């Protein structure tokens, strides 16, 4: 009897914990977003969607994700390929590549602030080379696109490492014989990458893309560090409604929007990158 019950006993703490701190709060968010003192209502959503910032906020978040994630995918593939090809110094290079994995988004924002601020390193270089005469105020509302670029750079810099780690471990699982066979049939390096590596990497690509896309929708501290509230994003607006505007219901409505696009993108990647039956290694 204890033998049968053992696995359930071992799972019990984790299950209870996730029920109390994961499922319950999400139900709460859903309830909050549809409630008012008078009962069920769509008012939080109306307040949210009719607010002038909502359209820009949603657009900024989706655009940032749509630019950041593909860049990260390409860079991570390049880094992973380099790492798997390396013979000497592999460990050192690998450690350097994975450093940003341990950094918080706030730290990344501050690091890129050092580069982009008015008396920062970019201005020092530009003035030193004589490209501009006086330091430029990059991170002001007049230069919204520079803030945008800075956020993209900071996010690509920080979060490419996690994609790379997932892809490197995925590449390690591809049998060498497949490459040898492809080589026998005359496939060059590029063709081997396209016809062997990429298809075999499908499960890892799926995991990496899902994780990264969800995280990209949650972009927050980087944007605050670099642009304050000049560049509104969903997570920042959620925070804003919760504290500055003191309306928890609208904050919950924002949270549901983030949740909805996260789930939509997860389902999208699950479907597009599904592994055909019987095709696992």
């Amino acid at each position, binding site marked *: 009897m204890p033998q049968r019950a*053992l*696995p*359930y006993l*071992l*799972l019990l*703490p*984790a*299950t209870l*914990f*996730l029920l109390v*701190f994961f499922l*319950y*709060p*999400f139900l*709460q*968010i859903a309830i909050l977003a549809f409630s008012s003192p008078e009962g069920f209502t769509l008012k939080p959503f109306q307040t949210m969607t009719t607010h002038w910032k909502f359209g820009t906020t949603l657009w900024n978040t989706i655009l940032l994700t749509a630019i950041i994630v593909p860049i990260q995918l390409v*860079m991570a593939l*390049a880094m992973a390929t*380099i790492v798997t090809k*390396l013979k000497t110094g592999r460990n050192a290079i690998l450690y350097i*590549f*994975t*450093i*940003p*994995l*341990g*950094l*918080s*988004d*706030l*730290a990344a924002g*501050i*690091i890129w602030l050092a*580069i982009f601020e008015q*008396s920062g*390193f970019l201005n020092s270089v530009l*003035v030193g080379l004589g490209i501009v005469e006086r*330091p430029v105020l990059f991170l002001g509302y007049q230069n919204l696109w520079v803030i945008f670029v800075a956020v993209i750079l900071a996010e690509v*810099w920080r979060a490419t490492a996690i994609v790379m*780690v*997932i892809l490197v*471990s*995925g590449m390690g699982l591809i049998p060498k014989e497949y490459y040898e066979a492809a080589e026998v049939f005359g496939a060059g390096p590029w063709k081997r990458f396209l016809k062997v590596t990429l298809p075999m990497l499908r*499960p890892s690509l799926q*995991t990496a893309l899902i*994780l990264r896309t*969800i995280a990209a929708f*949650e972009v*927050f501290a980087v944007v*605050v*560090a670099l642009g304050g509230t000049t560049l509104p994003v969903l*997570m920042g607006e959620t925070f804003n409604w*919760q504290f500055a505007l003191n309306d*928890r219901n609208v904050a919950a409505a924002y*949270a549901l929007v*983030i*949740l909805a696009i*996260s*789930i939509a993108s*997860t389902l999208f990647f699950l479907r597009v990158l599904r592994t055909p039956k019987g095709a696992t290694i």
Partner: protein
Amino acid sequence: MSVATVADVPRPVAEVNAAGKFLFIAGTVLLCAWVLVPIYLLVVNTLSSPQEVSGFPKTAIPSFDFGSLQFFLGFAGVVRALWNSVVVAVLTMILSIGIGAPAGYALSRFEFPGKATFRMLVLMTRAFPLPLLALPLAVMFIRVGLDDTVLGLALVHTTLAIPFAVLITFSIFSGIPIELEEAAWTLGCNRLQAFQKVVLPLVLPGITASAIFAFTISWNEVFAASVLTVENRTLTAFLLQSLSVSPMHLKFAGGAALVLPALIFIFAVRKYLFAMWGIANR
């Protein structure tokens, strides 16, 4: 004559190889610089005096003035925020391994009805923007008296870390052949003894690595920390809150304080990063 012989040598192939090799090395160096230079620039700013940090133009070599760091550590609330960050991260580490590791062990060693459902629950957490949990939990914590406490925040961070803890410990336990345990049973150990004497020593480094990973998750988390703490701010919450008002040298010293432990942690767990993800993919 000699010109002709040189031309006869199949030079193109060698050239293509050399060019490819050069491109490969250049790309590697560039990517390393891309990662390292921004961190170096932060270090330069941290090791400069406050006047230099707000001065212009910047130099690429720090003056090794500890004025900024002294200002940062002397600033009201910083030391406490640092301490809070450490306490929350340690609590998160203990809770997530204490709760996650048994689940990981169960998933790797037993076949039982409901296993798929549990895995689904864990995987589902990945599809949700978890820091948002802090919003409703803030209300719940006020009701039970956990508001603005390090424990309350640690509970939320544990929710962030548990999916990783379960999947990572699952992959670590799966790497230990069950035959080792079975051998211990036949030699007279009971299940617990076999676990203690055979499995535990083997998995300890891996478990430590995933504990450090949990620590890093908590150490770096910004949103939930800012939502849930008011008086007991962690370092990230403190820095975020003071971003719009604090002088530049405070921000950079704070950023460096966030980065330094992370560098050490990643170095400590570097061997396990790939083992963790290789099987977590499945």
